[in-house]
């Protein structure tokens, strides 16, 4: 099961500059673990210090679904899906 992870600019220093990375995994948690295996240290930037939750200023989407509306790190990642990691932005 392969997913494409879209890497935001601030995180590309940890992915050797790559804007997208293809990794395996059937849930968001697995995808992030695979991403961290390929680029050690990435998961620590996305997950809080306990490692069990996404940091509060990081938004993660599976295709167009915000995982906070779905199953969090347990959200299913279908084959070929795009996982987007996006810093929270303010409004108006």
């Amino acid at each position, binding site marked *: 099961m392969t997913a494409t992870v879209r890497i935001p600019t601030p995180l590309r220093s940890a992915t050797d500059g790559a804007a997208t990375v293809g990794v395996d995994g059937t849930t968001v948690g697995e995808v992030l673990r695979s991403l961290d295996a390929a680029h050690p240290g990435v998961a620590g930037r996305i997950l809080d210090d306990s490692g069990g939750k996404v*940091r509060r200023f990081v938004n993660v989407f599976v295709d167009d679904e915000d995982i906070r*509306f779905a199953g969090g790190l347990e959200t299913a990642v279908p084959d070929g899906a795009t996982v987007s990691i996006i*810093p929270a*932005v*303010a*409004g108006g």
Partner: protein
Amino acid sequence: MTYVQALQCRECGRRVDVAATHACEFCFGPLEVVYDYDAMRGVVTRERIEAGPPTLWRYADLLPVLDGPADTRDAGRVDLGAGFTPLVPAPRLGAAIGLDDLWIKNDTLNPTGAFKDRVVSVALTAARHLGFDTAACASTGNLAQSVAAHAAASGMRAIVLVPADLEQAKILATAVYGPTLVAVKGTYDDVNRLCGELADAYGWAFVNVNVRPFYAEGSKTIGFEIAEQLGWRLPDHVVAPMASGAMLVKIEKAFRELIDLELVDDRACRVSGAQASGCSPITTAYANGGDSILPVRPDTIAKSLAIGDPADGYYALEAVDRSGGVMDDASDPEIIHGIKLLARTEGIFGETAAGVTIAVLRKLAAQGHLAPGDRTVAVVSGTGLKTTDAVAPTVGPTFEITPSLDEFQSALSLQGSA
């Protein structure tokens, strides 16, 4: 000289040089402008501020102005005259809801009719200093109009993205300035997410994304003005609307800065927040004890507050908690009632966000959170002329007649007996 030193992450405290960036490279926390307050002491005085222009730029020393000597840097400002709006006593509204010393901060009187002119003037000024020639934003409407207007007046290109279902008046009032106006089929949060990705791909100044640290500072001027207009004195209580929560956070910050610089006496001012019940992620977190904000899908007539994923929500909770304030929310019928109550007691036609603020103000007074004698300021953040749809079903001509004196008198007497 500029007092700006760096940008600092509000979450982990890491510092970076001043640049067009909004998120911490380490933890994605929001970056905030750091000033050299020690250098301001004794220099930034009441007299210096009072000698400034009757706009938000009288507080330039306390804003993220990035280059040029203090007294010549206004040359590069993007300025339509935003800020220094009237702070007016509201005795008739106060009498209606049981408050004896109520004031309205009337931000409907900004150049495009909303407080957003403050943040946009500051954001685009910083953007120009950072070398941008294109301004962009995601907007629930007011920001779109303000960015389009300020960009037009400063010769910048504007790219503005809004939800396609926005009020028609806000679409027209933005399009007239000639921006590239993109109507996106989705909610504000969908539009914002797209902008987060566009900001990575294009070298534009997205006021609410990559130049947000500068943009957000503009809201402090509401707090500065309230204090100065009360004779350099903080009120007892301020009630402000919340969308992302940033405005409330910055008002509370402004009060702390004024105290720190000894421009006002150190006295407690409670800051309270208002949301629409149909989009209340922050007030819901407050009611639940406050350490987790869950995003919502908005369903409210208060579209200017319809941000389901409020980026400054955690800081709004902290600011309200630190200042001893409270939070509450208002239903759509309560919002409409609030709009009409403000208009019919004080002659100020506010938009739906104002209806939210007045409705919550009324609740807080009724619940005893506001004492009758408290000097209370309600922030009315935008004009009702942009959200006439909200009140259209409940207001209209009192009677319709042919041009006849008899018919007039008959209709008037019928109204009197009704």
